[in-house]
């Protein structure tokens, strides 16, 4: 038990260490902020894919929905920062509730196609209601209000550093919360559903209820990430809600590795960074993502995190028994 707890602490510490190192090592703090925002979205996707076994092409709905919600309530209703974040989280979870409640009625390929259909519907809805969403031009002039609590201004968040700190704080909170969730009986039930849904159901778990709750949690986090992204860019583009966004979030999650939440941070970091470095010199860098996706699925199912873990175990020469206990911890 003690060993397990140290692993939990270790992973959280690693995540925090990465958050401290990123703004120092990366070329710009805005880039580090973007990584953390996408890491939030990938983490939410990981809860579904890695822990519940649900492949969702609908994450863009919640991401774009969160971005639009936060932007609209800040522009039209003068919501503050936390209010807008909260609104985006609520709308994200409501959208996820709607999509999830319908999609989980089917399994396998039909489930995937339902999320795909909803994703396309959300895109065309956003495109159709261009009076609200700005259509192709996106929603411009999204404000970034100061961070205030009960009328007391804590920070104006005008500088990139302060906004990074704010996003890092949110990421840390969500990360710890998500780890609590997956370690809880609820989380282990999700894993049971992933491993064998029929058996989980036979043991007496109402599997659809668990899948729906996982969906809602995932939608809430993704909606929040979308809101933060709109605040970062001061802009909510239509591409937030495109199918491509859903695919990108999925790819980050898989390349990072679905066996640990830290994988999502690695995946988001790797892809945002590669995109930033390559997009100016080679606009077709997405080709690498395609190849990386194939490679990870076929040859490195653990993703970047799995690779690093294997490397670490090799270097430290830990014996088989610790290796198996740490893999037990993951499951």
């Amino acid at each position, binding site marked *: 038990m003690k060993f397990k707890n140290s692993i939990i602490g270790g992973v959280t510490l690693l995540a925090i260490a990465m958050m401290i190192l990123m703004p120092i090592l990366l070329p710009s703090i805005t880039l580090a902020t973007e990584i953390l925002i996408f890491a939030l979205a990938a983490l939410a996707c990981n809860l579904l894919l890695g822990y519940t*076994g649900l*492949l969702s092409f609908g994450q863009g709905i919640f991401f774009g929905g969160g971005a639009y919600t936060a932007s609209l309530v800040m522009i039209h209703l003068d919501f503050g920062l936390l209010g807008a974040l909260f609104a985006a989280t609520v709308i994200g979870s409501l959208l996820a509730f709607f999509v999830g409640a*319908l999609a989980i*009625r*089917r399994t*396998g*390929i*039909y489930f*995937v*196609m*339902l999320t*795909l*259909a*909803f994703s*396309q*519907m959300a895109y*065309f*809805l956003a*495109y*159709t209601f261009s009076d609200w969403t700005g259509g192709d031009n996106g929603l411009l002039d999204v404000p970034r209000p100061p961070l205030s609590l009960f009328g007391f201004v804590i920070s104006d968040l005008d500088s990139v550093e302060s906004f990074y700190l704010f996003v890092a704080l949110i990421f840390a909170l969500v990360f710890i919360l998500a780890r609590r969730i997956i370690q809880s009986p609820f989380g282990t039930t999700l894993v049971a559903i992933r491993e064998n849904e029929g058996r989980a159901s036979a043991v007496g778990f109402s599997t659809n209820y668990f899948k729906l709750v996982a969906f809602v949690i995932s939608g809430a986090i993704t909606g929040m990430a979308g809101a933060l992204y709109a605040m970062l860019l001061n802009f909510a583009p239509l591409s937030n809600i495109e*199918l*491509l966004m859903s*695919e990108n979030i*999925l*790819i980050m999650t*898989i390349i990072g590795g679905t066996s640990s939440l830290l994988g999502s941070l690695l995946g988001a970091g790797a892809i945002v960074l590669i995109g930033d470095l390559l997009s100016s010199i080679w*606009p*077709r860098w*997405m*080709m690498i*993502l*395609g*190849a*990386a*996706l*194939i490679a990870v*699925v*076929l040859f490195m199912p653990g993703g970047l995190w799995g690779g690093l873990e294997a490397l670490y175990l090799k270097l430290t020469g830990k014996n088989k028994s610790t290796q198996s206990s740490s893999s037990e911890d993951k499951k």
Partner: protein
Amino acid sequence: MNLYLFQALNGIGLGMIYFLISVGLTIIFGLLNFVNFAHGAFYLLGAYLSFSVVSITGNYWLALILAPIFIAFIALLCEKTLIKRVYHLPHTYQILVTLGVALIIQELCISIWGPIGKNISPPDSLKGVVQLGEFFYPQYRLFVIVFAAIVAFGVWILLDKTKFGALVRAGSEDAETLSLLGTHTHRLFSITFALGVGLAGLAGVLAAPIKGIHPFIGPEILGLAFFVVVIGGMGSFTGALVGGLLVGLVQSLMTTFWPQGASLMIYGAMAFVILLRPYGLFGRA
């Protein structure tokens, strides 16, 4: 009234193209139990290849023959090296691997042909119009309907009347038993995959003079093809034909008054069908 007739004919043409895309997807799913998310990308590649053949040789007919064959060949290579490794894995893995293939093909197309869309004109002999009663209709669009119908008939003969078709149908029921009975199922799988993907390439060539070629059309085409397959039922030839025509007609008639609504309605209907009749209108439960 004329306008509706005109749009209905357009819809049938579009529907036949959708059928050609979807029938490949549905055969591959039926026989191989394989979900091909790269199907839309192969359609795109077919359209671009026809653009190159037309701009080099100036001959559309050559493009109509060469491009689909080339696409089928690429699909065969893809199957031999990559796809066959994924057959035994769960659908999730198949989706992710073919999503990767789709991304590579799309980006490859953009780096070869550029990010801006291309247009090709129909062959000279089909540039005119035909007088149908009171109105004029482009010859090329009529040609697409007739040609696609001939191909559809050919595919039906192939699947329903030949030994190859019998093997494909037997394999859809139980590939393992078929293999035990002495059929080289790996070869059957390769040929079927190449055939299905080649049909998507052919659809791309046929559609290029009508719809133009846009580098990001792949995912949209894939979505539509899945919709057709879902309506028709996975693995059903008749389903793909009826579904394709239905989608083509609805889309074409809707575009006259609410274009975005057409897409909204199609994806809404897709969700509806999956929820109420998951095996489609013609599928087997």
